[in-house]
Each structure stands twice: as structure tokens, then as C-alpha cells.
């Protein structure tokens, strides 16, 4: 589906405990899904905003607080040792999941946004200056646009924005033009959160590396829907959030090649990120502690590991295939709803379908669908530059996870008829 990203055994469950994938049988693993909203069964199609959590994640967090809670590192008592082992174990689980070379290349942060801010602000501290350029694309989520804009404004550096085609595809040819000796970093989303477009990240990394330019990939929308192998992509940084990967909110990951992370100065100071402190001098800790100032979200990391282990217990290749089938079915069904126009027709895509409906505002669509038990998102999806480029104020967006089924798509399409009844 995505060139350069192989179905590596490390990131797709292939171990002995893997159970065959069946969408109906995974639904009970997610207790929140089995409820009525407004008296109707819930069809949760807002997975690009956040995914639901399997019971294993809820129980993993709860077990930590009930039995092992203590602060990590430097503790000399049993609970602290357990908590430290669990936290560092979570780091290893992430390393395995994204196939990082070393565990110290995994930095725990609050989420994708913080990961990108970390790199952007560290870049500012490492001497970003007037005349330097940062390359982003018009597809980016605000979290992969605003931190770079702030870095540019603070230093006088210039933001270069790669355009897209009318279909919502990145203009690859433009990278050849904008990547120059002035480029300090390229930042790009792996999957567009507004359109679901899968960008050819490995190819862009190759183009940038030919010129010695590092690349940060915003993987927020990718990790749950594609096998991600950071060594195969060869990116310098990869950012993602736990809560879009069936884990808890408040925890996320910045992967960085050890050499790149070593070269960056820390951006937050505090406990744990230092080796020694005197009144005259501070020596920073090694990776990954250098970037983890203060007590981290220990329970969040443990919850993230529980999510990863849950996913490793599934036949992920089959789960991805199911998601792809759902997307195809959704496109087919929605195209038949009178007045519906799909936004972003680029290929390949994953798990997201964005649409507009005649003159009906997406907010009205969202409210009426909610009344039918169908949860979607309506708005600019934190992509105002993209919406502006497409000449739209907002879209309605349905986004899928492996626990969704064809009947959820049917309920979405039927509810759109109801929208027409009320507002048409």
C-alpha cells in the first residue's frame, strides 16, 4: 500500500499467540462500543480523532495504579523498581513496534504535538537562523505546521510549503525544487488526517537524504493503520500519539535516530534530564532521558505498551486488509448518496473518508448523524491551510478502525438520507 514500508515481521503480529482476525469478535474487547447513544447502537466513526481502548489497556493502567505505583528511576524500593521496569519495558515495546534500532531512540512525550514541538524548538536552540528553510506541505495538520511557523518566526527562517494536486496528492515534483542547501529539515505527515492520503514518505526521505537534509514524519494517523518500520522509511524523526493507537491520551512518542537526537539540545529542563547540576554548571543526561524532563506519564506508557501487546496479539495484516475493505465499501456507498461529494480522491488512501453534501454544512450533518448513533467529525480538522486550498470551510469526516464493520458504513449512509430529510 505504501512503497518503502514493508510488512516487517517486527511490526505485524506473527507470533504464536496471534488469533485469526474477525471484526465481530474484536468488538467485545472494546467495552465502550457496546452502548446505545440517543437510544441507538453506537457506530463510532471518529477514530482519526481518537481510537477506543481495549479492556487490556484500561486494565493495564488500573493494575499499575493498584499494585505498582511509584516514581521511576533512582528509587531504591521495590515499587519504584517495578515501576521503572514497566516504564522502560514500554519503551522496548515501542522500539519493537516501530522497529527502531535502539530503545534509547524512543522518547516518551505527551503526544505527536509535543514531539514535533520538541524537534522544532530544539532546532531553534541549535542555531536555526535567517536564510534557513523548513519544508512542510499544505496537507499538514496544524500540529505539523504551527510549531514550524513559530520556529521560523522566532529565527527569521523561512517556511516553504509543498503544494498538492486538486485530488489531494502531494506534488512530489515540487520537492526537487524546494529542497536546497538552505533546507534545515523536512516535516511531512505520513497519512493526511483530513483526507486519508498516504504520502510516499520513504521516497521523500530519499530525496531529502540525497541532499543531507533530515526528515520528520508525523505518523499520528499512520501507526494505527499501516505497518510502520522507521528503519525502512529511514526517517530521522517519527512522531505519534498513543491515543490514536488504541492507547491512552497523554502519552506519545518521538522516535529519533540516535545521532540526530544526540546532536539536538534539550528543550525542557528539570529532573531526570540532567547528569549533574552545580551552581555553575549543568551536564545533560544521555538519551532518552535528555528529552524527558520531569516525572513522565508512567501509567500512560504502560497503557501504550498494553495497546501494542493487544495489537501484536491480532493478525494485523488481516486487520489492515479489513480496514481497506471498509474504506472501499464506504467510498462505494457514499458515492451513491445523492448530493454527497467525496473530498480528496488521491490514492493510496487509508481509513478516512472526507465528504461534503450539497449546501448542507458539515456541522448540521454531524448533529443529525449523532442523533442516529453515528459519531463522525465535522469541521476543518485542524487543517485550515488545506481547507483553504480545497476551497472548503469544512468537511464531514468518517474514519475507521478495525473494530468497525460494514453495518457501521450502512448506518452512516442511511443516516445521510435522514440528513436530507431534515435539511434537504
Amino acid at each position, binding site marked *: 500500500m505504501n512503497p518503502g514500508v514493508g510488512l516487517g515481521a517486527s511490526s505485524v503480529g506473527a507470533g504464536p499467540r496471534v488469533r485469526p482476525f474477525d471484526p465481530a469478535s474484536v468488538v467485545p474487547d472494546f467495552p465502550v462500543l457496546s452502548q446505545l447513544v440517543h437510544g441507538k447502537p453506537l457506530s463510532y466513526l471518529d477514530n482519526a480523532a481518537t481510537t477506543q481502548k481495549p479492556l487490556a489497556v484500561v486494565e493495564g493502567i488500573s493494575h499499575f495504579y493498584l499494585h505498582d505505583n511509584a516514581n521511576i528511576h533512582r528509587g531504591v524500593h521495590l515499587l519504584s523498581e517495578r515501576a521503572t521496569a514497566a516504564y522502560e519495558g514500554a519503551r522496548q515495546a515501542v522500539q519493537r513496534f516501530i522497529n527502531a534500532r535502539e530503545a534509547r531512540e524512543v522518547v516518551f512525550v505527551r503526544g505527536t504535538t509535543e514531539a514535533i514541538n520538541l524537534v522544532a524548538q530544539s532546532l531553534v536552540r541549535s542555531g536555526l537562523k535567517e536564510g534557513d528553510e523548513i519544508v512542510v506541505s499544505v496537507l499538514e495538520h496544524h500540529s505539523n505546521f504551527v510549531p514550524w511557523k513559530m520556529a521560523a518566526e522566532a529565527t527569521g527562517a523561512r517556511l516553504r510549503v509543498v503544494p498538492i494536486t486538486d485530488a489531494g496528492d502531494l506534488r512530489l515534483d515540487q520537492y526537487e525544487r524546494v529542497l536546497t542547501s538552505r533546507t534545515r529539515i523536512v516535516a511531512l505527515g505520513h497519512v493526511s488526517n483530513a483526507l486519508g492520503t498516504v504520502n510516499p514518505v520513504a521516497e521523500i526521505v530519499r530525496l531529502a537524504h540525497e541532499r543531507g537534509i533530515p526528515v520528520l514524519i508525523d505518523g499520528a494517523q499512520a501507526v494505527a493503520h499501516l505497518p510502520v518500520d522507521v528503519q525502512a522509511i529511514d526517517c530521522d524523526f517519527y512522531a505519534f500519539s498513543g491515543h490514536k493507537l488504541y492507547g491512552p491520551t497523554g502519552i506519545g512518542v518521538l522516535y529519533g535516530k540516535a545521532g540526530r537526537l544526540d546532536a539536538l539540545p534539550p528543550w525542557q529542563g528539570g529532573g531526570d534530564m540532567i547528569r549533574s547540576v552545580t551552581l555553575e554548571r549543568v551536564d545533560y543526561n544521555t538519551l532518552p532521558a535528555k528529552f524527558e524532563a520531569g516525572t513522565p506519564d508512567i501509567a500512560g506508557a504502560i497503557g501504550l505498551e498494553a495497546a501494542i501487546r493487544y495489537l501484536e496479539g491480532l493478525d494485523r495484516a488481516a486487520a489492515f486488509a479489513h480496514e481497506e475493505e471498509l474504506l472501499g465499501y464506504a467510498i462505494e456507498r457514499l458515492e451513491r448518496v445523492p448530493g454527497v461529494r467525496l473530498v480528496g480522491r488521491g490514492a493510496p488512501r487509508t481509513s478516512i473518508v472526507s465528504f461534503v453534501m450539497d449546501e448542507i454544512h458539515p456541522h448540521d450533518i454531524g448533529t443529525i448523524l449523532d442523533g442516529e448513533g453515528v459519531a463522525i467529525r465535522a469541521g476543518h480538522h485542524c487543517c485550515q491551510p488545506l481547507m483553504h486550498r480545497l476551497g472548503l470551510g*469544512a468537511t464531514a469526516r468518517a474514519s475507521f478502525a478495525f473494530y468497525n464493520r460494514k453495518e457501521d458504513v450502512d448506518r452512516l449512509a442511511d443516516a445521510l438520507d435522514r440528513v436530507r430529510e*431534515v*435539511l434537504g
Partner: protein
Amino acid sequence: MPDLRELYQEVILDHHKRPRNFGPLPEGNRHAKGHNPLCGDRLTVHAQVADGIIRDVRFEGAGCAISRASASLMTDAVKGRPVAEAQRLFEEFHRMVTVGVDDEIEASLGKLSVFCGVREFPSRVKCASLAWHTLRSALGDGRDASTE
């Protein structure tokens, strides 16, 4: 769920489809732009005020059914009224769509009372109040209004 018909009442749908007082107001002397960052909706309110009276008022912009109908009904409601009375209407309208008002006040709001159902839909309160925030800016300092 509160009945959708409570939200999308006939009067609201009518004003959504055929908004009143829609378009520019060349003779206007008070203007403000309003923005709902939640959905990106933007609208502009123009008013012509003389001797403390809103002689004419019009609006422009794109938005959802609720925000458009609210702007349309608002312009109908405040046209010809003293500025101070428009301010009072704003306050009562805002109370109606947020915490609720008694029957007497609801009745005094006339057609605006069709928005009483909005209170049951917290995510849509800002849609209903955007035009009013913008009108208040136009009558006040003219700065851009935001629902945030």
C-alpha cells in the same frame, strides 16, 4: 436525544434556506466580522445606526443552518430597535441558549424563541450565538468577534 425537530424547527429551516437581510449594506456605518474557530464559520454584520436606533442591519457569510438562521432572525428582530434594546435581547437570547429562561422571557423573545432547543445541543450553542456576538462588536468597538 432531544428531538432533532426541536433543534431544526420549521422557522429555522425557512430562515436557513431563505435568509432575510442577507447581503452588503453600503449605507452601513457599523461593521464587524465574526468567527467561530470551532468550525471555521465566518460572518459579517453591517448596521446603520442613527440617533441610537438600528435603522438597518444586514449580514453576509457562510455557515451552518443554525448560525445562518440565527443571523437572519436576529437581523429581523433588531431592525428598527434602539441599540440598548438590542443589547438586552442579546443577553436574554444568550441566557436562553445556555442556561434557559422562564416562559415569560421566552415569550418576550418572540420568533427568537425557536432557538430554545439549542440548549439541549451544547456543541451548537456557538453556532446560534455567533451572529449576536458579531452584532455586539459592530455596535461596540467594531473589533472582530469570536465565539471562543
